[in-house]
């Protein structure tokens, strides 16, 4: 039953790991176990949250975007340059988001219309967009951003900054939007069975392009948040974030093969990736333990998940062909139902032995 539940709700396993992490923290020093710590981690995860929403959409369509780090950097640089050139803060952010949207749409066009494989296309644009970053910034850091811009990520109502509230709204909207709207479902349909989706009247190419476009828009938003949080923009802004975003989503149960996953899961994955960071600091461990712990947990979750899925598949296949192997069981639906809850091991052993 537990296995079934975890299979249905991949988010739950990440949530458990997060609870476990905080439990360790509580054992070491329970004064850390407070709402403040959780909000601190939330504040540190904003960028990854936004990227994870985009990654979920793209991965739902059986795509992949490794260029988001470069789009982040490009949007941050565009916003920074415009603000320093005297543009208003909303206008600068608007242009930066537009640039991100265009970058994303370009990725989408390459993937859907030109039929370039997603990883190759976005690998190319990863280099391309990073080059634009250097061209625009002239190789130097952008400093002296207006105070009003930095204030966007300063704590405000209920301990959360304006941007943190925005991200919370975005997360809820994206989660509901992907689960309950026709367009959200069509992304999963395209990822699950492209030809089938086309046959039931979904404009598959357009859905894909929009998914990449929204992903670009969100990556640009992440870049703006990044610039606001640290107050200056280095050329390397966003480098390596694509891998963290993909890892967060995968951890949260979004499949790279398309068709499954939830924003909630991806967000929990992102929260987990960041909480390792923050908790290591609180435990006074050196920060360099971060990646090895994240990698180990990621692998354990993935391999366990793969093994469970394989076992469930074998059990289902066994039930499907059981009547041919064991004629007495044919038609006995009650027996079949029992077999479903019978321990996996016996069922597998029987099927192996019958071979």
């Amino acid at each position, binding site marked *: 039953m537990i296995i079934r539940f975890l299979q249905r709700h991949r988010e739950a396993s990440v949530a458990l790991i997060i609870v476990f992490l905080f439990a360790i923290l509580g054992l070491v020093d329970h004064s850390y176990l407070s709402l403040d710590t959780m909000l601190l981690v939330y504040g540190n995860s904003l960028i990854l949250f936004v990227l994870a929403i985009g990654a979920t959409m793209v991965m739902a369509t059986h795509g992949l975007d490794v260029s988001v780090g470069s789009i982040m950097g490009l949007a941050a640089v565009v916003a920074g340059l415009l603000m320093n050139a005297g543009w208003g803060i909303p206008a600068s952010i608007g242009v930066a988001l537009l640039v991100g949207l265009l970058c994303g749409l370009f990725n989408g066009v390459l993937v859907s219309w030109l039929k370039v494989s997603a990883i190759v296309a976005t690998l190319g644009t990863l280099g391309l967009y990073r*080059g634009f970053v250097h*061209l625009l910034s002239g190789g130097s850091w952008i400093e002296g951003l207006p105070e009003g811009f930095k204030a966007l990520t300063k704590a405000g109502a209920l301990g959360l900054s304006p941007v943190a509230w925005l991200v919370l709204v975005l997360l809820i909207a994206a989660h509901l939007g992907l689960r309950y709207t026709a367009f959200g479902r069509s992304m999963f349909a395209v990822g699950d069975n492209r030809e089938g989706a086309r046959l039931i009247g979904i404009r598959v190419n357009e859905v894909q392009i929009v998914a990449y476009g929204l992903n670009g828009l969100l990556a640009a938003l992440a870049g703006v948040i990044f610039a606001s949080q640290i107050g200056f923009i280095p050329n390397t802004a966003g480098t390596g974030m694509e891998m963290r975003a993909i890892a967060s989503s995968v951890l949260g149960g979004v499949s790279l093969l398309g068709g499954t996953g939830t924003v909630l899961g991806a967000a929990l994955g992102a929260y987990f990736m960041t909480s390792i960071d923050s908790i290591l600091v609180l435990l006074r461990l050196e920060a360099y333990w971060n990646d090895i712990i994240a990698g*180990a947990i990621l*692998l354990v979750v993935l391999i366990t998940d793969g*093994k469970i899925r394989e076992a469930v598949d074998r059990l289902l296949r066994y039930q499907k062909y059981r009547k041919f192997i064991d004629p007495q069981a044919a038609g006995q639906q009650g027996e079949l139902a029992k077999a479903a809850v019978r321990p996996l091991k016996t069922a597998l052993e029987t099927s192996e032995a019958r071979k």
Partner: protein
Amino acid sequence: MKLHPALKRWESVLALLLIAEILVFGAINPVFLQPSMLLYATSDFIHVGITALALTLVIITGGIDLSLGSVMGLSAITLGILWVGGVDIWMAAVAALAVGTLGGVFNAVAIHLSKVNPLVITLGTGFLFGGAALVLSGLAGATGYEGISNFDPAFVNLANLEVFGLPLPFALFLVLTVGFMALLHRTRFGRYVYLIGQNPRAAAYAGTPVFRTLVVAYALTSLMAALSGLILASYFGSARSDFGSTALMPAITAVVLGGTSIYGGSGTILGTALAALLVGYLQTGLQLVGVSSHVSSALSGGLLVIVVALRSLSEMGRVWFQHRRVLRNVAAE
């Protein structure tokens, strides 16, 4: 117009592009045409080429290895740690290569055990190996940007050694290219690699040792990544955990630009080798004519997008023409 079959091959196009590229840069700046310049410029990018050769095998099997950048850093740091710990530099180098190979075996076993997409598994192991490198260098007290240095001079000189007038890393690249060509195109193992990429299920039913083949392919990739890490350590005279972080994407670029299908089943070593040189010389050439290294990386990204999009378009055009011809024939009857 009848073209000789050899000219229709993608490798010929790459070779022509490579020659054209060298001539164009030579016309702008004659320094580029000097043989010593052409040879020694390779030292900046040849580690990418060496890794890409083995990565070709993995991609032909339908897999991918995102952890090779981390393996480069891990092998360099292993070398550094052992050297600081008083181990002989050559023993340390062998140990670093062994660590790299084990990483590859780990990748293959994890992929086989979990039946999860190689992209995801190697993303995870990439964090794991990169994290291990960071922990090792952190425990050794090496700061991020300085790394571990003061290696045995004999080891540091290795990258500048000449073999038959060629710099050692480049000579190594040529030898490995021939070696991998023989392995992929002339052995049973090579045929298995293609078969697994074409149709893994058919390969399994045909009794192909799928698991063993994958282990060898991933182990070779990691071994070459580890070797590249050592070459970089020798070239720079220091070992850092983040050595390979910028090598992963160019390596995949070289393989894909070389004509290997990212979905597996087709590709050649020669194509990868030529593409690695093409991209490498593009970067060097652009820097030589005064374009900053960052802009040149943008141009190689752009090159990848354009070439792959054009190939895809020409494939779509070919299919369209074929369909039209068939339809016309049907209509004529």
